[in-house]
Every structure is written in structure tokens, then in C-alpha cells.
């Protein structure tokens, strides 16, 4: 079936894509700049068409625990929020990771810390990729750079979440969530009728009872479980790295940027090349797993790297680890909800690597 072309905000695209992907349940709470997701779903009222449940919870805390309950039934369930709300969800996300439940969490990031601002930022990178809640765990983190990717990554998220029994975080930002672009929407998919064997759906006499928990008081068994998680994360690192390269073939200077910053940096590459500076861009699409291997390879080919983020410098630490001292690595970023301009990045590139 043909894809449908629409002009939509990123937030609306996520909502529409969720309905079309056959998501079973959405549980959310309003917070700027992502509220259009729940508004769109409530207006679309998919309970009448696909049977998808949409519920406005009393808090982000309740919403993520509803996701836990739904995911533990083997259903395709999701929530969305923005930075302060995502902080509130961290307890639940840790439990979901600990119980190995598949689900999608969308973070349309705004500036922080605290209440911060409602404008776009990329300052939740550490929280997203290094754990976020308590305990040793990782989310699979997808970073869309367009409205199209916000739509496409819904289905991809569930595919990965169920493949690895692991929560997936879509790390967007206020710019992509709010801006309108054309988007090709996939045709409607039936809601899945498959019940995973671990799901709690009521115990028939033919099987043992299913227990969804993240608790084990026996240190030896808990460590075995921790190691099982680590093996899973290693497999994800091995198989699921996604990135995009833009004019890297002959690049002398590599920009590393995701999401909105990657859009800005495409223009930066163009301007820099017009000025005779051979710049290239590597855009990580998965932030966990991070394209460490590829960045390491490129470190052997370029003179330096610049991590461009709308933050005080978070992803730059992963770039530094990948490069391991081979070439200089710097960070450039704006904060407080300010979107970096391509010209600023060019200036930063020049001042850090070329001088003047």
C-alpha cells in the first residue's frame, strides 16, 4: 500500500504513527513541548478504530507505571513526556529495564536543569544513554532528526523493544517536536495478536505462572541476572548501531551531532566547504548503542572532531572515549533553549582547529 503524504508537527507524527503501527496503549501526562502527542491521540480516539487505549494519567509517575503494567501483559505500549516529566519517570523506567519489558518512551527534550525552559535542548543525553534511573541498565536510544524520523522510529522502536525485551527511548527535542514538515506515513498495521510466552495474561492450566518482577534478594542470582543484561547490551552494541555520514569521505574535520544539531551541522559542512575547510558530519541515529567503532575509524583519517550539542557537552564524552586521544576533540553548544546557528559552528571549528 502507498504511503500517505501529510504536513505535520513531529509530535503529531509520533501520535499518528503510533495509531498506524498498531500500538495497544498510550499513557501520558501533559507537558510542553510534547503535549500535542496526547492531544492528537485523544482527538483521533483510536479506541473506536484500532482499539488502542489512550489514557491521561494523574502524573508522569503513574503514566510510566501504567506502561509497566501494559508492557508486562505483552502489549505494545508507550508514553511520552519532556525533560522534567522524564525525570519523574526514571523510577518506573529502571523497573521496566529490570523486568526486561519492551516499551517506547518519547522524550521531546527542553532545557534544564529544574523547570528550565520550554525551548529545545539536548541536555538529557547523559540521562538517556547512561541509565537515568538507579541500577546498571541501558535503554536503546534513537535520535530522530526530522518529523519523518519521529514517525518512522515508532515502529522501529517496538521492533527493537520486543526483539531485545528492552525499553526504547526516542530522544527528540522541542524543535523537531514542534516544527512542521512533510511526512510519509506508513499504512495502518493490525494490532498484534501474538502473546509473548512471558506475558501476564492469566495463567492457563497448561503453563507455569508468569511473574514480572525486578526483585531478587539472592546476591548470586541477582549477579547472574546483571550479567545477562550486560550480555544483552553487548549484543545490542554489536548489531544495532545506526548512523548517517555526510561528506565524510575526504573530511579533515569531523562534526559529530544528532537530532536538531545534526540538521544545523549539515549546513555548517556546506558553509565550511565553501570557505575551503573540508568538514564532514557523522550523525549518530542510535545514541545507545553509540557508533564508537566508526568514530574510532574516522579518528585515523581526520585532524580533529567537534561534538555539537545543545548542551554543556555530554555526547562529547562518548566521542572522546571513542577517539581515545588520537586527535583533538572539542565541544561546541548553546544552552538555555537556544538553537545553534550553522555560522556559529563554523566559527567554533575555525577557532578550535585552524586558528583565528
Amino acid at each position: 500500500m502507498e504511503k500517505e503524504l501529510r504536513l505535520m508537527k513531529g509530535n503529531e507524527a509520533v501520535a499518528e504513527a503510533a495509531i498506524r503501527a498498531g500500538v495497544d496503549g498510550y499513557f501520558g501526562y501533559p507537558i510542553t513541548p510534547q503535549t500535542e502527542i496526547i492531544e492528537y491521540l485523544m482527538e483521533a480516539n483510536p479506541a473506536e478504530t484500532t482499539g488502542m487505549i489512550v489514557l491521561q494519567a494523574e502524573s508522569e509517575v503513574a503514566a510510566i507505571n501504567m506502561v509497566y503494567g501494559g508492557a508486562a501483559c505483552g502489549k505494545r505500549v508507550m508514553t511520552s513526556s519532556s525533560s522534567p516529566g522524564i525525570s519523574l519517570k526514571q523510577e518506573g523506567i529502571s523497573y521496566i529495564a529490570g523486568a526486561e519489558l519492551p516499551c517506547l518512551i518519547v522524550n521531546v527534550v527542553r532545557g534544564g536543569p529544574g523547570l528550565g525552559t520550554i525551548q529545545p535542548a539536548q541536555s538529557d543525553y547523559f540521562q538517556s544513554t547512561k541509565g537515568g534511573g538507579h541500577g546498571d541498565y541501558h535503554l536503546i536510544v534513537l535520535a530522530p532528526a526530522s518529523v519523518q524520523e519521529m514517525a518512522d522510529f515508532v515502529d522501529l522502536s517496538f521492533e527493537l523493544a520486543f526483539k531485545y525485551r528492552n525499553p526504547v527511548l526516542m530522544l527528540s527535542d522541542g524543535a523537531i517536536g514542534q516544527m512542521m514538515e512533510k511526512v510519509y506515513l506508513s499504512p495502518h498495521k493490525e494490532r498484534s495478536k501474538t502473546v509473548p510466552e512471558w506475558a501476564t495474561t492469566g495463567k492457563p492450566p497448561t503453563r507455569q505462572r508468569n511473574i514480572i518482577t525486578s526483585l531478587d534478594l539472592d546476591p548470586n542470582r541477582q549477579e547472574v541476572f546483571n550479567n545477562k543484561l550486560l550480555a544483552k547490551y553487548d549484543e545490542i552494541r554489536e548489531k544495532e548501531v545506526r548512523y548517517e555520514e555526510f561528506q565524510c569521505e575526504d573530511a579533515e574535520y569531523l562534526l559529530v551531532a544528532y537530532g536538531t544539531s545534526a540538521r544545523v551541522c549539515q549546513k555548517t559542512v556546506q558553509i565550511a566547504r565553501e570557505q575551503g575547510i573540508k568538514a564532514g558530519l557523522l550523525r549518530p541515529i542510535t545514541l545507545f548503542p553509540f557508533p564508537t567503532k566508526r568514530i574510532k575509524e574516522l579518528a585515523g583519517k581526520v585532524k580533529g572532531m567537534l561534538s555539537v550539542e545543545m548542551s554543556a557537552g555530554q555526547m562529547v564524552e562518548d566521542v572522546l572515549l571513542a577517539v581515545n586521544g588520537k586527535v583533538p576533540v572539542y565541544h561546541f553548544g548553546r544552552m538555555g533553549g537556544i538553537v545553534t546557528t550553522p555560522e556559529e559552528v563554523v566559527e567554533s571549528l575555525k577557532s578550535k582547529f585552524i586558528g583565528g
Partner: protein
Amino acid sequence: MVQVTGIKEIIKPENLVYKKTDVMTRNILSYCPGCGHGTAHRILAEVIDEEGLQSEAIGVSPVGCSVFLYYYLDIDWQEAAHGRAPAVATAIKRLLPDKFVFTYQGDGDLAAIGTAETIHACNRGENILIIFINNGIYGMTGGQMAPTTLPGMKSSTSPYGRDVKTMGNPLKITDIVASLPGSYYVTRQSVHTASNVKKTKKAIRKAVQYQKLNKGTCLVEIVSNCPSGWKMTPVQSNKWMEENMFPYYPLGDLKTPVE
């Protein structure tokens, strides 16, 4: 000469008047001697068994002494974060509306950290059953003050007794739930005597049957004892409960369906 009867001679069909409910597993209960949890578990298991709900039931266990409830009842279980069971149960019931979904929570879980989840699940009238064990103390962590600890009652975090001026008053959350339009059947019971066990079983059976009507949340509070936390023998604790807990948390129905 006295004939000593062997155990094998006692185990005869005609002597089997009481047995383990099929829904109870063979796992050994982790509770202190004299604790009411075991009795409450047994009643719940019997009702699930007798109502034929073993394959329909999905339970949500709390954080607290009954965190390992999933060891004891042979049904599907989800273990929720502290206080979040009603939110977890909400999603289960919304996504699997034909199943019997219940939570089992203590006073710290349900009436302190989980107050918002409790009130809002009941206010939405989620078609779930909440079983609420109120023993006025945090048992699992070793006897700290709970939202339901009585005025003047000693605990490890109110060692001179609960001073309501600085520590607040005991919360009658069941009364609040009964006042919400979303709740359908709300009752307060106990399991410390044989006749109370019968009444509680009747209440849980009623709640389970009401649940099938999809008319709102049912909540069964069980005022219970905590011999270890209260630093009493089981017998003393039951007497203390009758003399001190029941006047503050009187037993009986708080809300019954209008027939």
C-alpha cells in the same frame, strides 16, 4: 497396652476436612508468627479457587512485607514499584478488560507513597479490586511510622509516640475512597478471629463478584496486626488491635452498592 496411631492411619479421605487450596503454592510463607498476612493470602486464594478465577486472575504485588506474594499464589503476577500498584493494575485492566485484576497493598504502599495512584485509580472507577492491609506500621523495613500509625503509638521513627502536632494524623484513606464516585464497594474487615475470617472471606467474594459488573473500584481494607513491629506477642497484638485500632478504624461496610 496403648495402640499408637501412625500418621498414615490418620490420613484417610474421611478425615480430610481441611486442605491446602490449590491456588496456594507449596512455598513457605515469609511472615512472622501471628501475622495476619498469611490468613489474608489464604482467604484470597480460596476465593480465587472457588470462583474459578485462577486462569483469569492477574495480581499486582506491592513493596512491603507482601512483596513476595507472587511466591504464594499460583496465578500470573506483576511486582509493582512502591505505591504504584493501582497505576499498574489500571493498564492491565484497560488492556485486558475480561481479566480479574487486583492489587494487594500495605498502608505505607497504599496510603503514603501511593496516595495519588490510589485516589486517582479509585476516582476513575477502574474495575479492579484493591486489598489493603492496614497494620499501622512499616513492617518490612523494621517498624517505622506509617500514615495509619495511631496517635501516641510508638514506632522506630516515632520512638516517643506519634505526636500528631508534628507528625500528622493517621490517614483514614478508606473513608476517602468510599467518598469517591468511582468506588463501588468499600469495606473494612479483620482476620484475627474465626468469625472475622468468615466475614472477610464473604467481603472478598462479594468484591470479586462485583468486579465482574465493571461498575467501579472495590476496596477491602483488612485491619491487621504486626506482632514484630508492635513488639508484642501475637495474642497481645490482637487484643491491642481490638482495643486501639478498631475504635479508630471501625470494622464494617463503608460503601455498598445501591441495589
